[in-house]
């Protein structure tokens, strides 16, 4: 479980997060949704510690993350996997070296054991014969899948995904969404996904948190989201013509 309590964050005096309190459940795909500039990426990056919050508390199970020392945070972060918007794969390393990187840094496994684990992670994200390729020669969807393989290399307890579908076609987006959902349940981890893609919400949104103008406006499940009377959320959810038509035809 990851819990944020009364989070505040501002940049050069401009408030970006205001009094955000939310609990992200274990073994669930928790989605943070909101329009561009609503503060959802800042919330995600604050949760993982890439931004220091101005006020508030962040809990990872029973550990108060915001009160940990640099070394303690380093230790906790070894239990976190993160998929970045652009993949953030190391361009100086091959796919195999990218996935092997956390093992090189934090385990004493032999090369054989590491290779075995790399192959198992790549198989899990349905990638084969790419071990020796460099990230620049992979498609966007493949880079995302390598990013997921790297994120789960050391069996993390928490998985964060920053806009995993950005730049991908709808079919590949569904593949990535389902992969994240499957991994969350197989590894029994807490997953937080930051997205503005309503397809993702309807595919895998077990818990959905809506951020608007830096504040938490709504939270619920993917079933509840279609029947809410929250005006800002409805504007966001039914922004596309297709969603409006579905609503009008009673679907």
């Amino acid at each position, binding site marked *: 479980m990851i819990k944020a309590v009364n989070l505040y964050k501002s940049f050069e005096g401009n408030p970006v997060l205001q009094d955000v309190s939310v609990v992200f459940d274990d073994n669930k795909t928790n989605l943070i949704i909101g329009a561009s500039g609503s503060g959802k990426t800042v919330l995600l990056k604050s949760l993982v510690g*890439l931004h220091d919050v101005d006020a508030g508390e962040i809990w990872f199970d029973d550990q108060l993350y915001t009160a940990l020392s640099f070394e303690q945070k380093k230790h906790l*972060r070894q239990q976190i996997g*993160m998929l970045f*918007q652009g993949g*953030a*794969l*190391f361009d100086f390393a091959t796919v195999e070296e990218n996935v092997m*990187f956390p093992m090189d*840094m*934090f385990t004493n496994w032999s090369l054989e054991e590491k290779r075995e684990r790399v192959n198992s992670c790549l198989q899990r994200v349905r990638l084969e014969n790419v071990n020796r390729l460099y990230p620049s020669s992979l498609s966007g969807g493949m880079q995302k899948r390598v990013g997921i393989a790297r994120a789960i290399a050391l069996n993390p307890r928490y998985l964060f995904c920053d806009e995993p579908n950005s730049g991908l076609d709808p079919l590949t987006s569904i593949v990535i969404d389902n992969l994240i959902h499957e991994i969350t349940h197989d590894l029994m981890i807490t997953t937080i996904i930051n997205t503005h893609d309503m397809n993702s919400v309807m595919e895998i949104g077990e818990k959905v948190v809506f951020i608007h103008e830096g504040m938490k406006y709504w939270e619920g499940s993917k079933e509840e989201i279609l029947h809410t009377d929250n005006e800002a959320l409805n504007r966001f959810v039914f922004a596309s013509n297709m969603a409006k038509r579905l609503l009008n035809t009673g679907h």
Partner: protein
Amino acid sequence: MRKIFTLVGQYFLLMEKVLKKPDNSTVFWKQFVQEVEKVGLSSVPIVAIVSIFIGAVITIQTTYNITSPFIPKAYVGFMTRETMLLEFSSTMIALVLAGKIGSSIASEIGTMRITEQIDALEIMGVNSANYLILPKIVAATLFNPLLMLMSFIIGLCGGGLIALTTDVITPADYIEGLRMEFKPFYIVYGVIKMATFNFIITSISAFYGYYASGGSRNVGQSATNGIVSCSLCILIFNLVLTHVLL
């Protein structure tokens, strides 16, 4: 002024993160070897070319400027040796390296910053500053003083070529000058300067890359700022070290 103090403070805070025991010593030494190649060995050709030409030019200019018949021609070799050892092979070569490896380090780390690769390292629990910067600093500080010694020897060879191939000075006079009143401490002085300058080059250019933000244009700007700051610091520390050591 306040901006300068902020930058200096930020630099020391970064160095506090950099100068720590590496997370994994095996990975560190593997990177160290790669960095010796990148920041040291790859600079051998440019250092050699610059040194041989400068050695030759110093020999010619010194000869033509000694017009008094009371000054022995052997002083040409002496002047070439002293100029190369005291100033050129350390300070001037460091300024050349600031442009070559400084820009490469700042743009490499800056690109990693804007493509979130540094964030990825942090999320894994890796001390990104230590992982990315320490091997570069150690490799340049330990290896590049050898470049200074190489530059010194090649510079003297450049002067020797002039003595051998022209009638500017005889080889005998040149060699006599090279052997005149040699102080071994000057080699130690040159090595200390070169090690200090290389620490400055790698740490300052890495600092500018590490805190790059925005897009590719900002990475380019960070590299430029890094080179300018490195060059300025090299000149200041050259003055300080010369005053302290000589």
